[in-house]
């Protein structure tokens, strides 16, 4: 069988395939001849992030150097149901695909399917919502690091500590937990006096906005805010409630960055960092590299796309003409991946 060899680094393109940590393993799969059949097993689809991700995947697969290596690139979205996604992967394995890329609905549920992929010699690459396993490749964003970044941002801008509003994501997900822990560990480590009010925003603008509005109505004043998603809604709630602008650690929504640029002078000092949907391209790249027999880390650490006040630049860090829901972190220069907003969202339009 064609199980990967575990080798010691360095990886093939060290500036792109950065290992997660010092003790990350490296895989060397038996070389397969191209062109390859690669599948993307997506779960949920009905939000801008996922749609943008799929558009990016198609755009990347359509790039000439990538197309040359692909015989087939198939995408299936199975919705929120984990078993459906598992079945899709099983089907891809049974149908002889060379690699399957997955944005997993659940990090722990794929153990049986990872086993099957391994037996069948199929390269499995997870990204965004990765898998808790050492048997498949993960393309990871440092979620906890993101929390740390936001915590540090608040720490530096609030010398005396203070009252923080933390707008959390979807409870029970590892992303939410990791980010939350990052923020709190950083704040606690600062030794200052913090009071953190947590509300649930569920990574959704209206929900976050409502929760923020309620929190402001009850608590009147916050000294700093951090939100994991739905940040545009959070700022909107501040504006509606005439809450003074305060330092803010948040995600990479275009709308949020528009606000950050506009109100920076009035005190909305932002750190905007996150996990752009373009990471799917890195995942595809990793899968191809693995199939080509190159050495890749079991866990690839993606760079964070960070922009902080006062560096928000029009049409580079944010796009005034694009949708608020658009996610801005679309370039991974170290991997040679650079998409403009137009390339991604306009892709189908040109094709039609």
């Amino acid at each position, binding site marked *: 069988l064609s199980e990967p060899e575990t080798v010691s680094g360095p990886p093939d393109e060290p500036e792109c395939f950065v290992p997660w940590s010092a003790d990350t393993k490296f895989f060397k799969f038996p070389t397969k001849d191209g062109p390859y059949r690669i599948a993307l097993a997506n779960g949920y689809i009905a939000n801008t992030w996922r*749609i943008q991700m799929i558009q990016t995947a198609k755009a990347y697969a359509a790039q000439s150097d990538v197309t040359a290596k692909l015989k087939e690139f198939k995408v299936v*979205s199975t919705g929120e149901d*984990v*078993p459906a996604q598992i079945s899709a992967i099983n089907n891809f394995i*049974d149908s002889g695909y060379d690699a399957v890329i997955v944005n997993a609905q659940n990090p*722990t549920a*794929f153990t*049986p399917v990872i086993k099957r992929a391994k037996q069948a010699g199929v390269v499995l690459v997870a990204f965004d919502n990765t898998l808790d396993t050492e048997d498949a490749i993960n393309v990871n964003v440092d979620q906890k690091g993101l929390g740390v970044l936001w915590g540090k941002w608040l720490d530096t801008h609030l010398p005396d500590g203070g009252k923080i509003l933390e707008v959390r994501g979807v409870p*029970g997900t*590892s992303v939410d937990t990791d980010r939350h822990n990052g923020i709190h560990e950083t704040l606690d480590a600062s030794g200052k006096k913090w009071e953190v009010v947590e509300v649930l925003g569920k990574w959704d603008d209206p929900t976050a906005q409502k929760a923020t509005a309620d929190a402001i109505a009850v608590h009147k004043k916050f000294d700093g805010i951090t939100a994991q998603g739905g940040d545009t809604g959070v700022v909107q709630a501040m504006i509606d409630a005439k809450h003074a602008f305060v330092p803010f650690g948040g995600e990479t929504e275009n709308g949020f960055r528009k606000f950050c640029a506009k109100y920076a002078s009035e005190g909305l000092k932002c750190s905007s960092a996150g996990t752009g949907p373009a990471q799917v391209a890195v995942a595809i790249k990793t899968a191809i590299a693995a199939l080509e027999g190159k050495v890749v880390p079991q866990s690839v650490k993606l760079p964070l796309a960070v922009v902080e006040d006062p560096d928000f630049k029009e049409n580079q860090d944010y796009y005034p003409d694009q949708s608020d829901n658009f996610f801005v972190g679309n370039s991974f220069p170290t991997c040679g991946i650079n998409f403009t907003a137009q390339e991604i969202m306009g892709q189908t339009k040109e094709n039609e």
Partner: protein
Amino acid sequence: MTGDWRYRLARNRGTLLAFGIFLAMFTIYVLNHPAGFTANVVQTATNKGVLLAFVAMAQALVVITAGIDLSVGMIFILTNCLASWIVVGTPLQTALGVAGVLAAGLACGALNGAIVIYGRLQPIVATIATGAIYFGIALWLRPYPGGSVNEGLADALTGKLFGIVPASLAVLAGAVLIVWAPFSRSVLGRAAYAAGSAEPAGYMSGIPIRPAKFMAYALGGLLASIGGLFLTFFTYTGEAAFASGNAYTLFSIAAVVLGGVSLYGGTGSGVGAIFGALAFRTIGDLLFVFDLDPLWQPLFQGVVLLVAVSLGAFGLLRVRSRLEWFR
């Protein structure tokens, strides 16, 4: 008797239609599948379908009494989370764990039944509320996805018998034999049908309406927990996934309707609901064999569902008396 078959056919028309729809769609599916009609393909489809089949059968029991259980999805999720804690260890521990999970499902169903019947609340809202409670408990059990399950048992029950027959299908058949068949032929089951068809008339006829409804809800919880157990076997973990709980609830309603169970109560069968669930699942599988643009997939699924549920409307063409529009 000579005329019997006609009545028999009429009685099972919903189930037969569901079977027909399923068969047609599944045939299209395997004919177009790159791997073809292999044991693996069938196993994959079955494992996915059986989960919904259990939940749909649970829903069918309640719907037959003219009720509805909008918490089945959450019972399914809750028992999944519970199973990821307790269905581990030695065979004895595992067995106890399985029993515990089933008991929990039964208890959830019984709570629904008690609130709806003895509290006299409308099932739709009552089960929305209990669904929130079950989800809260599930989240408390599993704040993050994780846990484990007895993998030997899991592999056995999601694998293949004799290398051909999916084991999950056998378990499903077992559940039909052990839960559905006796229910449909028992006095309480008959009373459940009566409750759904004409509750006051049933009461006036002196049959045990309330125990029957209670049993339907309780058994519904039990079947949902078998589903939750299988989810655990299938994924090796537990997860308090709100969206997927809601999705299973809604899917189960679609499945029972496709399976010929009337939402007005009184007619239909658990077997029909199973075929409805399998047919519904095949709609999703069709995505795999047709080369659709990924962004068009949700629309395709929606339209197929719309067409499938509209099939019943063809019967209207035959309606000669407009009064038949109204039940």
